[in-house]
């Protein structure tokens, strides 16, 4: 292991340049696929999770326990199992609308996976807002929707954003798992490239890792920036 690492450092730079030039087009193609998977997962996972989280954030007789069950089911099982169920088991139910190609199955499972975390974040943030904020608004004639939109959500956002960054980064990394249902994303492209250049396993994984990092790091930065901005004016009750 250490020997391999020293070889990696000491070897001819030109060799690495050559390998990079050879594998980068494939890795970039995989990177684009990863980007697509992550963005679709983030977008509809956030939409679904945001909606469920808002419902769960206020005590509604039927919705709250149902959403709770959904969360426990998803968070208590590995993503790989969820993906297998969606891709391999659902088609066996015989309903044609559940027969998905691998990409649709990947989109659906990544979104559902994301939604389970987003739901908990959003509902937790809503519940963290003091009850008096709701009552103050109700007493002035705000209805429930207006109270949510104008009073509660703007105050929750500073709690939601930082936690969301962590979930999105987890999702980006989780996209590597969908290679098992035949999606040729970044990790799969790296594996294919290693077959072509078996002597450079560490280097090729390093390149793939650098690409993941190049995706995740800005996400964390942007969320951090938004968090700072949302803190301006959002004060804690004296």
């Amino acid at each position, binding site marked *: 292991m250490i020997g391999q690492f020293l070889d990696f450092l000491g070897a001819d730079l030109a060799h690495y340049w050559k390998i990079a030039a050879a594998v980068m087009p494939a890795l970039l193609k995989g990177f684009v696929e990863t980007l697509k998977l992550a963005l679709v997962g983030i977008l509809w996972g956030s939409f679904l999770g945001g909606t469920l989280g808002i419902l769960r954030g206020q005590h509604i007789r039927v919705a709250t326990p149902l959403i709770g069950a959904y969360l426990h089911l998803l968070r208590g099982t590995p993503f790989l199992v969820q993906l297998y169920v969606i891709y391999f088991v659902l088609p066996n139910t015989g309903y044609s609308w559940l027969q998905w190609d691998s990409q649709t199955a990947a989109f659906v499972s990544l979104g559902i996976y994301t939604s389970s975390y987003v739901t908990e974040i959003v509902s937790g943030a809503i519940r963290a807002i003091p009850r*008096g*904020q709701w*009552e*103050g*608004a*109700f*007493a*002035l*004639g*705000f*209805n429930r929707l*207006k109270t949510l939109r*104008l*009073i509660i959500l*703007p*105050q929750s956002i500073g709690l939601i954003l930082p936690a969301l960054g962590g979930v999105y980064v987890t999702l980006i990394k989780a996209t590597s798992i969908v290679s098992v249902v035949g999606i040729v994303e970044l990790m799969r492209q790296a594996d294919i490239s290693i077959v072509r250049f078996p002597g450079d396993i560490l280097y090729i994984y390093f390149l793939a890792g650098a690409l993941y990092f190049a995706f995740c790091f800005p996400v964390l930065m942007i969320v951090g920036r938004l968090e700072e901005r949302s803190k301006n*004016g*959002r*004060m*804690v*009750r*004296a």
Partner: protein
Amino acid sequence: MDGPGGIDLSAAIAAPGQSPGAISIDIKSVKKRYPATANSAGIVALDDVSLTVKSGEVVVIIGPSGSGKSTLLRTINALEKIDSGTIVVNGDVVTNKATDLPAFRSKVGMVFQHFNLFLHKTAMENVILPQVAVKRRSRAEAEANAGKFLAKVGMLERANNYPSQLSGGQQQRVAIARALAMNPQVMLFDEATSALDPETVGGVLDLMRELAGEGMTMVVVTHEMHFAREVADRVVFMDAGAIVEMGTPEQVFRNAQSERTRKFLSLVG
């Protein structure tokens, strides 16, 4: 009728069809009980309470903690559900399921013990937002109005401060301005001075006294006996979810009929 702020509120107060002396709030046989839970027996919060408040009248509700006075106040704008009885406020049947509660509540101002100012908005924005979002006033009109009422409560210099930058008394005055800017027909005060530092209580009570003098219909839950004695047209003493005694301050404070009332008054001085 001008207050120290120099703003005449009489136009805001006298809503159409409300001559002074007409019944403004009519509470009839209201009952409410909190059901028994695993660790507490059921509690009767309101036990067949009836009360009418005339337009322009100031009714002050006193009584020990847990007597149901805040609960009663909160039923008036339906923040608290009741089990039976009817509540009518200026023609709106609050207890009717078909009543548009948000529209009704926009006509009733409420001031809370903990102010409940919107924490992400400045004092100014706190007063503007409900006017725009609920009353559908133009931004310019709401702003002018907000300036007027913040000046009335003496908070115009602090208009751009967030609630966290204001003292309790200042926050409460902004909350009163926010409620008044909606041109309420009735104002409800739920222990408005109980959470304040002693030195800021006076300013808020002065403001409430001023409103009473301008003819606002007010229902006030308070522990401030001096205020009750001095400002109330009628004092209501509640205990264990029921109205025990009701009358002019003179009748209740000097000449209470019930032993419970006399005992309470002797304890609170």
